[in-house]
């Protein structure tokens, strides 16, 4: 036995050495290398990118996570955060009147902050009058005790300069700086007055916090990703109704949505990449088994036992797998290193690359692939009858599905599970995939059979090509299904990518509004309109605004908003109606009246009014209708100053909150609000070259508040660019995997083709005819595969768009054309190139005889 083992090892090594040298193992080798490299690079790359994107975006909340509360939180929360090495900063937020002297006062929003704020991003402040005028600023944390930083509008409104003092509550503060940029600047158009930042140590001196004061406490946390996750898991169950726990991704804004979609896309791409590589391995393993069949038969005829052959091939396959996995890991490392290096220019990539998780996933995937996808072909190989030595082919009918394929199916499921982390989703995907494969197989069989009758009148090469298709109908059907799957998966990624990019582009079209004008009074209206028209600016309509409160729904009084809370995922918990009173918003709303439905608003229940309609009506935004449990026909009571009135809900609207224009929860018809005093708001795009002109215009109207969202838009569009780049990079890797499936599949039928070409040669077919017939055969396969792939893609994309990405479904006929044309061309060329050796080889034989 010892001798036998030595011999087996020696033989295996010998086989491995020679086969490697002769390039016989290339396809299997590349398939495994690619599977491992894809997983290693993608899981390394995409997780790094995800972390970096979130890191980058976390600036918008100045922290990794925020705990917001209406009361100070328990000390043990802070202790826990310290145990986990998290940094934290505390903020107390409230609004108050501030006084420059006895006559000048202003409502401002105060943020008292502890040290370390901001934990993420930069707080830029001009600390001297010179810097302020020159527009220079430096990154700082909290102001020192006794001094404050203020927004520029406060200086203009109170006619102050840096160094002046103002009174907040019971204390006097020196204005030590002007805020140029705050990372977590509120995008609330109606925030109460300009911002003031003071040191948290001074808050008691102001004596502003008293029983019943409306105060918001914010605790900002940041730290290592894992620690943040641990902390998050620990704290989530403790969050009560008056608190909110959120990260950048749980925000209901454009950035969060962009990030979430990008993450989903990256995961989807990795998953498809792995499936493609697995398909390539399984095709290549089948070819490997077919190619070694006669060798096994010879071994057996020479007296080798089955156990010898089994050992021989297990060692051989293991060697091949081992070498391929190692090479795959090296390649994977290089690919992700290159990718991250490129991305590092755009994103804060963490230098300490965590290689163990990608390594573990890649090796596991590699092993699953080389074991599970090779079991069935290797089993067949080892059981090859020695009779093959006398009969070139022993009848072994190709079975599409039997128990031998169980390991492959299980492996596919494990891979899906490993990458999606969702067993139900994996099961559904597997079942759907199996269904699609079976349908495709049946369809392919029919199409291939049909092609014979269709081609009967065509030219000679076409006839030959179609006859070939027909003759190997089973083989070709399997081949066709592989082609279809490969093209389909690639198409899927390309289409979803283009949809995502379009979607993002739509959020931020060129020249989307970058300034908001608030508080425009009736007399200023004409001036603003004139400025806009004169400078040919793009601006939204001017919306009249009046603050008001929702007080009752169907005469049922409502209680404050603290009954409504959001958990981390932004979903709203509504207290049980039967035990608790109706809940409201607990704050003033900005009400508007309009004759026409504004852009980016869609009525989805009820009807929009006509301008002449004389009954009091309100149109309510969909999410708030859901949250407050309001339906069409409900009667809402509002209070405006001392007036109280009731209106009927006649429509419910969907609003695109990502559109850079003023949006409203409640819109009334003219009849209701026309007689109340209103101010106006508008959004507009100011191109860089008109910034100065705009500033001069605003200087004439100090009461108009301007909100600049330029920086925020630039950051968002920058992030979208980074995400698009990451996606393009991943797409390239997946395309490579797809190509490998095609090459492996073409290679798999090489032996059969070789025999046929030799016969056709002998029968006198000339080189051109043979070349053309091969080319046409593959073109036909490619075109059929492209068509089927487009069809399947359309169905899957529909589900992905509606279920996974929350986008509106759309059709992609342009991609059908691309898939069919490129499928035909690419598969045709690939087939021809792969068969080139055979075509020239048979030619050599012919001329040599």
């Amino acid at each position: 036995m010892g001798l036998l083992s030595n011999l087996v090892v020696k033989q295996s090594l010998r086989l491995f050495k020679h086969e490697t040298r002769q390039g016989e193992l290339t396809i299997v080798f590349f398939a495994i290398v690619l599977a491992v490299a894809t997983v290693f690079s993608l899981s390394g790359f995409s997780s790094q990118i995800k972390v970096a994107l979130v890191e980058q975006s976390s600036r918008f909340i100045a922290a990794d996570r925020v705990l917001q509360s209406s009361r100070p939180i328990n000390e043990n929360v802070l202790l826990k955060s310290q145990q986990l090495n998290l940094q934290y900063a505390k903020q107390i937020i409230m609004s108050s009147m501030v006084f420059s002297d006895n006559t000048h006062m202003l409502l401002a929003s105060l943020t008292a902050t502890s040290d370390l704020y901001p934990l993420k991003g930069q707080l830029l402040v001009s600390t001297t009058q010179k810097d302020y005028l020159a527009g220079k600023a430096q990154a700082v944390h909290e102001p020192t005790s006794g001094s404050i930083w203020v927004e520029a509008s406060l200086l203009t409104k109170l006619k102050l300069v840096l160094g002046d003092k103002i009174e907040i509550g019971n204390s006097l503060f020196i204005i030590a700086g002007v805020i140029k940029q705050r990372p977590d600047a509120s995008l609330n158009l109606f925030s109460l007055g300009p911002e003031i930042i003071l040191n948290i140590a001074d808050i008691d001196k102001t004596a502003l916090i008293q029983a019943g004061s409306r105060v918001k406490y914010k605790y900002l946390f940041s730290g290592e990703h894992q620690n943040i996750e641990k902390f998050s898991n620990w704290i989530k169950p403790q969050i009560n109704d008056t608190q909110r726990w959120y990260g950048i991704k749980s925000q209901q804004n454009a950035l969060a949505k962009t990030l979430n979609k990008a993450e989903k896309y990256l995961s989807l791409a990795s998953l498809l990449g792995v499936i493609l590589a697995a398909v390539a391995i399984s095709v290549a393993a089948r070819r490997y088994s077919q190619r070694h069949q006669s060798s096994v038969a010879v071994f057996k005829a020479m007296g080798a036992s089955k156990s010898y052959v089994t050992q021989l091939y297990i060692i051989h396959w293991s060697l091949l797998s081992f070498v391929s996995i190692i090479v795959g890991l090296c390649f994977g490392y290089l690919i992700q290193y290159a990718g991250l290096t490129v991305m590092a220019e755009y994103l804060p990539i963490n230098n300490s690359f965590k290689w163990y998780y990608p390594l573990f996933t890649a090796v596991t995937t590699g092993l699953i692939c080389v074991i599970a996808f090779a079991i069935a072909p290797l089993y067949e190989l080892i059981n090859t009858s020695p009779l093959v030595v006398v009969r070139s082919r022993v009848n072994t009918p190709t079975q599409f599905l039997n128990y031998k394929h169980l390991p492959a199916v299980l492996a596919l499921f494990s891979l899906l599970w490993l990458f999606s982390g969702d067993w139900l989703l994996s099961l559904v995907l597997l079942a759907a995939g199996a269904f699609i494969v079976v349908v495709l197989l049946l369809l392919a069989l029919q199409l291939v059979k049909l092609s014979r009758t269709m081609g009967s009148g065509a030219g000679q090469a076409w006839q030959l090509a179609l006859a070939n298709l027909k003759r190997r109908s089973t083989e070709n059907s399997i081949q066709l299904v592989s082609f279809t799957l490969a093209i389909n998966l690639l198409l899927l990624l390309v289409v979803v990518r283009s949809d995502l990019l379009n979607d993002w582009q739509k959020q931020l079209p060129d020249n989307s509004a970058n300034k908001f004008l608030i508080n425009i009074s009736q007399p200023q209206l004409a001036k603003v309109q004139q400025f806009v028209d004169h400078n040919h600016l793009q601006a939204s309509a001017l919306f009249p605004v009046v603050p008001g409160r929702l007080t009752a729904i169907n005469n049922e009084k409502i209680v404050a908003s603290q009954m409504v809370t959001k958990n981390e995922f932004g979903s709203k918990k509504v207290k049980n109606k039967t035990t608790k009173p109706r809940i409201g918003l607990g704050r003033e709303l900005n009400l508007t009246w309009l004759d026409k439905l504004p852009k980016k608003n869609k009525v989805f229940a009820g009807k929009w009014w006509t301008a002449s309609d004389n009954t009091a009506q309100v149109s309510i935004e969909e999410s708030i209708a859901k949250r407050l449990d309001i339906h069409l026909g409900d009667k809402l009571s509002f209070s405006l100053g001392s007036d109280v009135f009731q209106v009927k809900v006649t429509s419910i609207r969907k609003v695109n909150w990502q559109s850079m224009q003023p949006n409203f929860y409640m819109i009334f018809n003219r009849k209701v609000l026309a007689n109340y005093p209103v101010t106006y708001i508008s959004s507009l795009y100011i191109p860089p070259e008109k910034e100065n002109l705009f500033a001069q215009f605003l200087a004439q109207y100090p009461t108009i508040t301007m909100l600049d969202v330029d920086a925020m838009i630039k950051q968002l569009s920058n992030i979208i660019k980074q995400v698009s780049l990451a996606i393009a990079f991943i797409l390239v890797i997946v395309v490579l995997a797809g190509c490998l499936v095609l090459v492996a599949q073409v290679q798999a039928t090489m032996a059969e083709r070789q025999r046929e070409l030799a016969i056709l040669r002998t029968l006198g077919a000339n080189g051109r005819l043979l070349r053309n017939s091969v080319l046409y055969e593959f073109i036909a396969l490619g075109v059929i595969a492209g068509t089927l792939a487009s069809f399947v893609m359309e169905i899957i994309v529909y589900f992905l768009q509606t279920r996974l990405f929350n986008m509106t479904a759309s059709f992609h006929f342009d991609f059908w054309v691309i898939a069919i044309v490129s499928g035909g061309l690419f598969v045709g060329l690939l087939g021809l190139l792969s068969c080139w050796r055979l075509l020239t080889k048979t030619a050599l034989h012919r001329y040599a005889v």
Partner: protein
Amino acid sequence: MNINTDTILEVKQLTKSVKLENKQLTILKPIDLVVNAGETLAIVGSSGSGKTTLLSLLAGLDLPSAGEVYLKQQALHQLDEEQRSQVRAEHVGFIFQQFLLINSLTALENIMLPAELAHKSNAKELALTLLNDVGLAERGDHFPNQLSGGEQQRVAIARAFITQPDILFADEPTGNLDSNTGQHIANLLFNLNQQYGTTLVLVTHDQKLAQRCQKQIEMADGHLIAQQNNLPLPSPLNSKLNSDLNSSTDLLQEQALFKSEPQPRVIK
């Protein structure tokens, strides 16, 4: 009939039928046959007459549907695949029409293979000797695709003799070669066979080749229809003497011929 140690192969009422689309097709009708040690037997017949099926049953590559096969007194029809492998390893050599060399092994390694499988420690020396005997001493490290058809078959012949099998089965050994090369290969085969005193069972439809065997059976439609002796049976002693007398000169002639053969085409 003399059933003693001289009988190396005996077949009784051997039948083979296969199922083809729900129909039972008998491809070998009951056959009886005896082959003695040292004999050369040709099985001739047209295509589809059942020659190859008979050969695969005699060599234990396949199992009969009915009947008995004894090779070196071992009942092949009662053995499983593994046991038959063992018998083949100990007693049987093969030469195939398609040469069937292992593509990823060199000529030398191909020749060594059966000796290694039979646990012969001197496999390499034996292989080198045989490589020299078949006139390919310089080409041991060439791969099959670097050899011409004739050269490949010479390697296959060397491979068949390396274990000094008791019986050698050759399936159309010249079938894939042009007549000139086929002639040389046949000479080599018969010379080595004589030299080693091996029993030879040869399947062919080439009458000239069949004529060189001592015994000839003809098959048609799965039946054994004729059996004839071409030459008187040589005694083992005669055979050995003949081979000693003839081998050296014959082989020299063969080698001269091989050397004049054009260099093989190297196919890329």
